[in-house]
């Protein structure tokens, strides 16, 4: 009996009138935990009852404490008939279970009813007394901390980053079980809410157990999702990154001992094979060596694969009677399905010679003539990646082997993090993704190996093999998603293949850090761009050049990633949100035919999405994408693809070539003219964008790149035109073709559409910037004014003869108009940046498209911005010259190992200024804080992991809430818009109330994971499910901190930032 839960019901307020006669309510409260229920007295005739109850005490297992939510039901007492429920409050008591988080939950909670929404509030106090339990076989995992934040939380230090944890739990969906019976919808939806709450508690506990097994104490980047599979049930699944975190007493301690990402690489001897016991990921250790066991052809499976044939393999066991219990799926996937998988994907590949290699986004040269031989080539190199590159130097091989040793005994070397401690990320290979189309069937026998688990294992294997093909041993920024329509489900996973520094992956890091030597001078800020794969054995055709920053390593011409921009990355100018949008019509079909149709369409979708992304990136004059998220949504009669990313110009990568348009019929004069007109328009747009985003990279002559010792004359050459120099650069790069060879062929209307759509994207109005990453490069002077919002739009397509083009246009307009609306609404915040813009597309019905956007608008200081811009221009000029100086000094540095302590690293000065979201500029130009609300404390919400101008002092626990709202009087509630508007406002309110009750004043890393809206206007009904999560935190304004201590260090953890700021 290791825990005692104590609950006190204090009072209620603003209760609804339940008795029409007296206009009053006789309210009482039921408090339920597990199977125990307590009741308060009835407080007669009041809308503001004061129960002031005794302490209700529940003596429970800690396992239950983790799984069960505390249920508080407010009822109206009725002498003659059944008591009427007013509404409920579910309180997740998990935050009370770990020592550093909240100690008490106390506050006003909105009383929620699935039909009436919020109906007054109730004041509750909850406490937990935990007894120590040393039982080795315990089933609970109390004390494991969970964070939604996809970086190491601000007031912690990562001792070890253990790796991937995943789990899934399935159950019958009560809504579907009960649908035929006579029941009130409220009962079933409440059952559903309760069930999901229970399932997510259980899931979290099980993930926690895995973390404990790995000897970790926290899960970072915890992402939990619900798959509402309809008839086949309800799946709750979660992934995360297990870590061992240390609480920081002062932020200064976070500064890592080493600055260069690769310094201590060699220090860890590779025979120091990490103890498998400490790293085994759950019960699946037998798979330790499986990474080597692939047959060569396995890597073909990167094609989004498998469909109907897979289905035949899934165990079709007879349905056995089952109650609404919850079953755990074994986490080790059956490997037997591999062969089938292989068969299917080969088949798929062969019948689509156009199939693009969507895994190899690292350098997406997406020409339409991707040949089969290249595919084979990729497969071969994928296998050969273990065997070190010749040209890449012994270091690379070494590094690879080391990381391998640290990572390969893991089943899945995946990390859900998108931001990393300095030095963690060594190289980035590119985006890897895998999709799979599955047919859902009822989860018959939970005792059998779970098919859902096997499906995911399969996809993860695919991802892993893609990463190998890119010469990488880990996948970072990893995420998984599903799209379900009827019985077809698309499973997707994506991430960024990367080479990691093993230092963080095993014990004994501190020592390793101390005795490090400099093996290679990987300059900070460009190292991650250097190719991890072997130059001669490239997994795909790419144009490599020497890094424009250090000129020692090769870099690709374009880099796509799913992670956030590394804080030390050198970026020129500002970034911008880039979206590719695509619709494809699909015939309506049933089951297997449908699944086949979808899997046939997928490769084309992926290909086109990437072409669009590439074109738009070039049009913006940029060369890298961060935070790439490609969402493919399946509907009854169409597929939608939406890719969002933040484009930037990485200083280390070559300047992007332009876009050339080529016509098919060159002899036609008017056609020629048209083409050249278009070409001019495109060129103008590129020029305009370069100006808009302040992309003015220093001109670099080929000599600089060619030889480490520059000619003395080179300064005079600095003003050479970009096109000239880039041409020359490519000439040096002998093995590959011209870089400018990005040609759009206008040979049909399709391509014409493409070009048009390229040019129709309107840039945001002046004063607005947008990105889908945490921070915007080039803006650092944030003020504390933030506004998080959710916007939802649903459009109805006219069903008459829809074509792909019309569909694309509709979808494009929908997204563009939505963005325009956002800019208009937030115009009072100018100058401002929309950060973490997160688009989600769903197809709730035949002709409906729903787009949901959540983002945060942050105001920045314009004056500061202008100064920065000026300084930036000066600096880039400075840099251009300084670069040469640096090169002159280079041989010296090589001997003295002094690069990191270089007194004035010119490149760094640029970056640090940008990468520091809470720079010193804030202190001077902060807007006055708004006067505090008298009654209700302000709770900030943001999808970012930080709050501008403030310091997070405490994490109070994870917020993970699921709500269902339904109505049978849609018109009366203001139609669908009124209904959903009110519901989302209510969801925000409930999140804020829970955070406030935990003693917090903000939610960071907030995300609305699901917003499923269904309507039936004929019946005047609608229903919506929303799932949100985030981390409840306490933050302190930096201004307040300043008062407290003058010696307040800058509230971030970047190395060398002091040096950088002196120069600004």
């Amino acid at each position, binding site marked *: 009996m290791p825990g005692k839960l104590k609950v006190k019901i204090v009072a209620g307020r*603003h209760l609804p009138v339940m008795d029409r006669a007296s206009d009053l309510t006789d309210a009482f409260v039921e408090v339920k935990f597990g199977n125990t229920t307590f009741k308060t007295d009835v407080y007669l005739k009041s809308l503001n009852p004061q129960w002031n109850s005794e302490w209700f005490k529940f003596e429970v297992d800690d396992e239950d404490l983790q799984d069960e939510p505390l249920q508080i039901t407010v009822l109206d007492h009725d002498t003659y008939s059944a008591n009427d429920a007013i509404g409920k409050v579910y309180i997740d008591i998990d935050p009370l279970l770990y020592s550093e988080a909240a100690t008490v939950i106390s506050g006003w909670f909105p009383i929620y009813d699935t039909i009436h929404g*919020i109906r007054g509030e109730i004041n509750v106090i909850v406490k937990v007394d935990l007894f120590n339990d040393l039982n080795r076989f315990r089933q609970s995992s109390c004390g494991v901390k969970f964070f939604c934040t996809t970086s190491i939380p601000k007031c912690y230090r990562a001792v070890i980053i253990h790796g991937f944890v995943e789990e899934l739990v399935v159950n019958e969906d009560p809504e579907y079980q009960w649908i035929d019976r006579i029941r009130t919808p409220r009962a079933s939806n409440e059952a559903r809410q309760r069930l999901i709450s229970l399932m997510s508690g259980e899931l979290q506990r099980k993930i926690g157990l895995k973390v404990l097994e790995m000897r970790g104490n926290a899960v970072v980047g915890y992402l939990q999702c619900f798959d509402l599979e309809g008839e086949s049930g309800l799946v709750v699944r979660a992934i995360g990154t297990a870590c061992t975190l240390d609480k920081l007493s002062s932020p200064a301690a976070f500064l890592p001992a080493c600055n260069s990402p690769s310094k201590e690489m060699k220090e860890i001897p590779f025979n120091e094979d990490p103890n498998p016991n400490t790293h085994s990921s759950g019960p699946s250790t037998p798979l330790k060596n499986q990474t080597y066991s692939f047959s060569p052809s396995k890597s073909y499976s990167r094609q989004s694969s498998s469909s109907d044939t897979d289905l035949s393999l899934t165990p079709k066991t007879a349905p056995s009677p089952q109650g609404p219990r919850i079953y755990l799926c074994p986490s080790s996937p059956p490997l037997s399905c591999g062969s089938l998988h292989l068969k299917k994907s080969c088949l798929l590949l062969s019948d689509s010679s156009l199939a693009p290699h969507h895994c190899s986004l690292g350098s997406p040269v997406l020409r339409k003539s991707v040949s089969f031989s290249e595919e084979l080539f990729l497969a071969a190199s994928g296998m050969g990646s273990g065997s070190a590159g010749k040209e890449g130097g012994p270091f690379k091989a070494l590094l690879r082997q080391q990381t391998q040793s640290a990572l390969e005994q893991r089943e899945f070397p995946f990390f859900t993090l998108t931001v990393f401690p300095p030095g963690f990320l060594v190289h980035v290979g590119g985006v890897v993704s895998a999709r799979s189309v599955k047919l859902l069937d009822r989860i018959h026998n939970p005792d059998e190996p779970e098919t859902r688990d096997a499906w995911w294992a399969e996809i993860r294997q695919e991802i892993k093999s893609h990463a190998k093909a890119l010469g990488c041993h880990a996948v970072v920024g990893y995420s998984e998603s599903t799209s379900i329509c009827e019985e077809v489900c698309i499973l997707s996973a994506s991430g960024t293949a990367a080479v990691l520094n093993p230092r963080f992956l095993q014990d004994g890091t501190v020592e390793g850090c101390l005795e490090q030597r400099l093996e290679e001078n990987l300059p900070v800020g460009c190292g991650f761009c250097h190719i991890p794969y072997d130059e001669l054995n490239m997994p795909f055709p790419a144009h490599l050049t020497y890094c424009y920053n250090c000129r020692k390593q090769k870099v690709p011409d374009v880099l796509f990633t799913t992670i956030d921009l590394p804080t030390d990355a050198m970026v020129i100018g500002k970034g911008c949100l880039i979206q590719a949008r695509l619709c494809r019509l699909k015939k309506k079909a049933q089951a297997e035919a449908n699944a086949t149709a979808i899997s046939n369409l997928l490769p084309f979708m992926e290909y086109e999405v990437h072409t669009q992304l590439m074109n738009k990136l070039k049009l913006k004059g940029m060369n890298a994408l961060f935070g790439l998220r490609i969402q493919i949504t399946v509907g009854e009669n169409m597929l939608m693809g939406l890719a969002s990313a933040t484009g930037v110009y990485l200083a280390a990568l070559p300047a992007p070539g332009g876009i050339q348009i080529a016509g098919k019929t060159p002899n036609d004069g008017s056609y020629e003219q048209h083409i050249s007109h278009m070409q001019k328009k495109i060129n103008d747009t590129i020029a305009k964008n370069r100006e808009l985003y302040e992309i003015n990279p220093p001109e670099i002559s080929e000599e600089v790149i060619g030889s480490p010792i520059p000619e003395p004359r080179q300064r005079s050459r600095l003003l050479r035109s970009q096109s000239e120099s880039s041409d020359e650069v490519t000439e040096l790069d002998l093995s590959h073709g011209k870089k400018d060879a990005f040609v759009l062929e206008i040979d049909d209307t399709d391509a014409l559409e493409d070009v048009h759509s390229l040019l129709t994207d309107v840039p945001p109005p002046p004063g607005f910037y947008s990105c889908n990453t945490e921070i915007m490069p080039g803006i650092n002077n944030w003020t504390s004014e933030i506004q998080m919002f959710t916007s939802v739009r649903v459009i109805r397509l006219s069903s008459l003869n829809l074509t792909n083009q019309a569909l694309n246009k509709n979808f494009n307009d929908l997204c563009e108009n939505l963005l325009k609306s956002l800019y208009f609404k937030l115009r009072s915040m100018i100058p401002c940046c929309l950060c973490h813009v997160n688009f989600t597309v769903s197809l709730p019905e035949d002709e409906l498209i729903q787009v949901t956007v959540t983002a945060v608008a942050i105001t920045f200081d314009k004056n500061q911005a202008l100064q920065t811009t000026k300084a930036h221009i000066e600096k880039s000029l400075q840099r251009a010259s300084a670069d040469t100086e640096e090169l002159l000094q280079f041989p010296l540095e090589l001997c003295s190992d002094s690069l990191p302590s270089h007194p004035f690293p010119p490149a760094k000065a640029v970056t640090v200024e940008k990468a520091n979201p809470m720079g010193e500029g804030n202190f001077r130009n902060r807007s006055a804080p708004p006067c505090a609300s*008298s009654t209700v404390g302000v709770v900030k919400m943001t999808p970012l992991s930080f709050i501008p101008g403030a310091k997070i002092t405490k994490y109070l626990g994870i917020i993970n809430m699921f709500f269902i709202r339904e109505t049978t009087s849609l018109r009366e509630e203001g139609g669908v818009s*009124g209904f959903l508007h009110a519901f989302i406002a209510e969801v925000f309110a409930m999140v804020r109330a829970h955070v406030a009750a935990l003693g917090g004043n903000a939610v960071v890393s907030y995300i609305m994971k699901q917003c499923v809206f269904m309507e039936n206007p004929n019946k005047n009904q609608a229903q919506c499910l929303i799932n949100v999560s985030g981390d409840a935190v306490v933050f302190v304004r930096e201004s307040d901190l300043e008062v407290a201590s003058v010696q307040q260090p800058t509230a971030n953890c970047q190395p060398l930032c002091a040096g950088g700021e002196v120069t600004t």
Partner: protein
Amino acid sequence: MTSELDIFVGNTTLIDEDVYRLWLDGYSVSDAVALRVRSGILEQTGATAAVLQSDTMDHYRTFHMLERLLHAPPKLLHQLIFQIPPSRQALLIERYYAFDEAFVREVLGKKLSKGTKKDLDDISTKTGITLKSCRRQFDNFKRVFKVVEEMRGSLVDNIQQHFLLSDRLSRDYAAIVFFANNRFETGKKKLQYLSFGDFAFCAELMIQNWTLGAVGEAPTDPDSQVDDMDVDLDKEFLQDLKELKVLVADKDLLDLHKSLVCTTLRGKLSIFSEMEANFKNLSRGLVNVAAKLTHSKDVRDLFVDLVEKFVEPCRSDHWPLNDVRLFLNQYSASVHSLDGFRHQALWDRYMGTLRGCLLRLYHD
């Protein structure tokens, strides 16, 4: 492509003051969009009409949801659904309870019941204020009236406490409640020249001096168990006013009064002869108004009587305002020198207020 659903929800509720005004003024969404387009907002921001439409709809929806809370402003402060900075909350409330001069003049002193509500249509046509806006304003009056009607304590304080209005607006509402409760006639043709401000001024004086609340606060009676109410006129006081009749009924007293006033004012008034000629009429008028106040019918006609009996005669003789002031001061003060008159305190309570009112009412 039609938009089925289009919403924007901010963690901090976005309030656009311009749209709020349009909403309060009762414009439909399409009218509001048209008005916004005319304001040149599209040119300023480069937005499209569709964006404006969507934005307006969003704000209207928000306001519609807020309206329920605005009916009981303290709820707006305590509610959890909309996170609104306090300054914005105050603005929302203040603007919601603000009213149009033209409208309030139409309903001032009328019974705030459903019967009157049917007349809102006419008022709307007459004043050019949208019916919706009329409804809101009328409902505001009625709501405030209902809440504070039976309440003890200062009327203004009660309104301020329950509706969180500014001091200025609370005073205006106090006047509206007071007028509605006493049903003062304000709609007669001859009262049309008076503004709401004139009436509000009078109401404030009357509340301060003529109600039960005024008595309760008297230092002579600190432990008064009398209902401390500002809304009703002090019935006892009204009864007592009959006693003043002696001032005009007793011919000697009237003459004495006249001579006292005339002696003091001789040479000080430009319209002295007119005053002298009219004194008895004016005095009779003023005293009779007092004497009649026992009947609620006559209470209602108070302003009509004052204008008929005093303002109009003076105005027709072109009394300058300053002479009116001098006359009224002297007229009130002289009573103290009438030895035969024993109701000095009553007279002061009556005349002190009346003098203030009359001076305010005396204009073109």
